[in-house]
């Protein structure tokens, strides 16, 4: 993919990045000085706690809730928990401790002096075990990729399964892989993102998606390992590190060798009405985990274009990509891990809509030359006219190959009707295969006319993005979010779900996971 087809001004590009840094910095500072219930639970999960009570509430939730009740979370959960662990004689078993605590027989304190030192040491050793598992998984992935091979083409073909039942999902995912998918995403049941706990075990009861659980992750990863072997290419598995449990789900992904995670800095705020501060704190921790686990994140800029207009709001996508990039780098992710999102969502009745799509897609490509951009299909302007739908998806695929996108989420002709049927996926993959096969080399002959429509549009969008970033830097990102800058969703920093799960660090806050994850820096 030869670059610089848009003739972007490097000075403008640099300015845009600098502004994103300025806009993002205060949020990072905030994230560094706060924790959340989910961050603490993630740390304890790394330390080995598992299981749930009779009502399905994970022991880690019971434990952290109790700590919060007893001493607050300002010092982190590990200090009081590992202190209690040392004292309570449960032989280092966190789950047992949680059960005891739930029965009322343990009370938590913040240890001091050598007690604190001991608790820190103990917790760090336990957490290091979890991180070691993540590291092993990363090596294992590298090995399997070497063994089975990478996808045969770029973009990678990304398919969704969504039956709600992990045992229906598995054969569908395997069929999809056989039919050509390189990446399988199991989308989540509606409502999971607002649960402040991660369900346990294999599940068969989701609405329009399947619950993300550690066991579901394990089952699906194992099934796809089989498929990888059968097909001679490593099939990647994706899930969603989003919602109120973002850090925990990221952790479970690392522990079960998932390969990609949806993980956006603002999606939960905008589309799940989750509190902005909660989200940014959770996000930073989850990205540190992803960085360590070698997981590719997928950001969610595509979503803005379902509520805002794809032409008017094109520059908000660019701004968000730049912010996501900044936050990702800050958390330790490398460029190859940045599946920055964007989408084919312009009203197809608009004259030149296809060239506008090309301009936008190429702008993203050239702004982030080393990131495996994730290219999302039309959804908003899909209708029940499935014949037209399949056609639009074909032109979406064409933009994907013409502009060198890294990950292609395959569009379905039934987008406006149902979650994908087996046959929808087959038709959709056939569409992708045709376009990549028949026109895969066409990018050689695609040269946006110098100074022409496409170049002008791209320059225009970049210009608007810089202007918006300047405003955000002046006004703060939190205020911009409150004002409806992204996806026309207004989300003030003091509203939204999960704010009560945020705690400001006290002096002496301790988090062994962060310590390990940031050690290399």
């Amino acid at each position, binding site marked *: 993919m030869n670059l610089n087809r848009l003739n972007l001004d490097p000075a403008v590009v640099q300015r845009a990045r600098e502004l994103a840094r300025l806009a993002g910095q205060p949020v990072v500072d905030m994230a560094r000085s706060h924790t959340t219930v989910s961050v603490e639970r993630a740390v304890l999960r790394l330390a080995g706690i598992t299981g749930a009570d009779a009502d399905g509430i994970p022991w880690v939730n019971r434990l952290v809730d109790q700590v919060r009740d007893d001493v607050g979370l300002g010092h982190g959960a590990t200090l009081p928990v590992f202190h209690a662990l040392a004292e309570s004689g449960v032989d280092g078993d966190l789950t047992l401790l949680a059960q005891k605590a739930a029965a009322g027989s343990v009370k938590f304190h913040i240890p001091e002096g050598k007690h604190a030192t001991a608790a820190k040491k103990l917790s760090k050793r336990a957490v290091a075990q979890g991180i070691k598992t993540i590291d092993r998984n990363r090596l294992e992935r590298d090995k399997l990729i070497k063994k089975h091979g990478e996808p045969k083409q770029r973009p990678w073909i990304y398919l969704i399964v969504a039956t*709600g039942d992990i045992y229906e999902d598995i054969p569908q995912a395997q*069929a999809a892989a*056989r039919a050509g998918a390189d990446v399988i995403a199991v989308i989540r*049941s509606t409502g999971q993102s607002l649960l402040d706990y991660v369900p346990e075990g294999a599940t068969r009861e989701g*609405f329009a998606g399947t619950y993300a659980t550690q066991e579901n992750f394990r089952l699906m990863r194992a099934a796809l390992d089989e498929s990888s072997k059968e097909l001679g290419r490593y099939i990647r598995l994706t899930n969603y590190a989003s919602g109120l449990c973002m850090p925990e789900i990221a952790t479970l992904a690392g522990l079960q060798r998932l390969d990609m995670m949806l993980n956006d800095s603002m999606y939960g705020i905008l589309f799940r009405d989750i509190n902005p501060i909660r989200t940014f704190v959770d996000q930073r921790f989850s990205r540190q985990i992803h960085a360590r686990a070698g997981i590719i994140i997928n950001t969610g800029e595509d979503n803005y274009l379902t509520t805002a207009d794809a032409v008017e709001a094109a520059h908000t996508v660019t701004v968000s990509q730049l912010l996501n990039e900044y936050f990702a780098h800050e958390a330790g992710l490398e460029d190859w891990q940045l599946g920055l999102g964007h989408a084919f969502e312009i009203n197809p009745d608009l004259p030149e809509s296809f060239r506008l799509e090309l301009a936008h897609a190429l702008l993203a490509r050239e702004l982030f030359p080393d990131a495996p951009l994730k290219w999302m299909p039309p959804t908003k302007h899909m209708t029940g006219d499935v014949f037209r739908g399949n056609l639009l998806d074909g032109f979406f695929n064409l933009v994907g190959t013409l502009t060198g996108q890294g990950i292609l989420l395959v569009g379905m002709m039934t987008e406006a009707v*149902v979650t994908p049927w087996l046959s929808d996926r*087959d038709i959709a993959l056939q569409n992708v295969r045709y376009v990549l096969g028949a026109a895969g080399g066409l990018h050689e002959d695609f040269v946006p006319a110098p100074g022409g429509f496409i170049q002008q549009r791209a320059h225009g969008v970049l210009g608007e993005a810089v202007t918006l970033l300047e405003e955000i830097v002046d006004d703060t990102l939190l205020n911009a979010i409150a004002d409806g800058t992204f996806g026309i969703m207004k989300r003030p920093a003091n509203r939204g779900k999960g704010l009560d799960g945020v705690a400001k660090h006290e002096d002496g806050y301790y988090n062994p996971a962060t310590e390990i994850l940031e050690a290399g820096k």
Partner: protein
Amino acid sequence: MTKTVVRPYGDTTGDGMTQVSFTLPIPHDKKAEGAALQLAAKMGLDPAMLVHAKQMGDGFTFFVIYGSVRHLVELDKVQVVERDFPLLGSKEINTIVKQKLRRKLSVVGACIGTDAHTVGIDAILNIKGIAGEKGLEYYREFKVVNMGAQVTVPELVAAAKQEKADAVLVSQVVTQRDAHLYNTREMTAAFREAMPAGKRPLLIVGGPRFDELMAGELGVDRIFGRGTTPREVASYLVHSLVTQRSK
């Protein structure tokens, strides 16, 4: 001269031509094609042409069938919820509310359950509206509270009480495993429980995949489907809550 019986039209009046596609959970062979044709026959296609069959994975085959459907469409027996209220302009609506209701008409809206698709309810409620029409917030004589997404039924009932809602507008877009029906029934049951018949607000649901004929069954006063515009909803509200009651 109005036709009362029609048939599908391919390229000749009365030819009955229809296209069907489906997947059967069996591998592709002659027998599978026969099975697909059997199903087509049961659906009323006669003759049926199996024009495409493709195996997917091990045990599934996708079929496309064309053929002439023998059924007649009896136009005089078509059941449909026709608009039984006049479509009014926003000025008129405001005037009627002001003159006849003599207070603001209170509306509470939400996406309930785990559904987070707010674009539809926002299109009806928020000023921005849809298809060139402003939403209900734009109507001077309406008081609108839009509770947003993933609202629980108890929260909704509480808000309806607090706002003294004349009408409650609920949106449901996710339909997988009949989520929309389930949530709607839960909602109407809660309102029946919480308030006596006379005091209950008008209960309205909307979304692209509802069957408008199911209002009675679901316990709502009205269902609005694909492509609803705010003006239709506003007109219905004044008709049901003001014009009709004051008669």
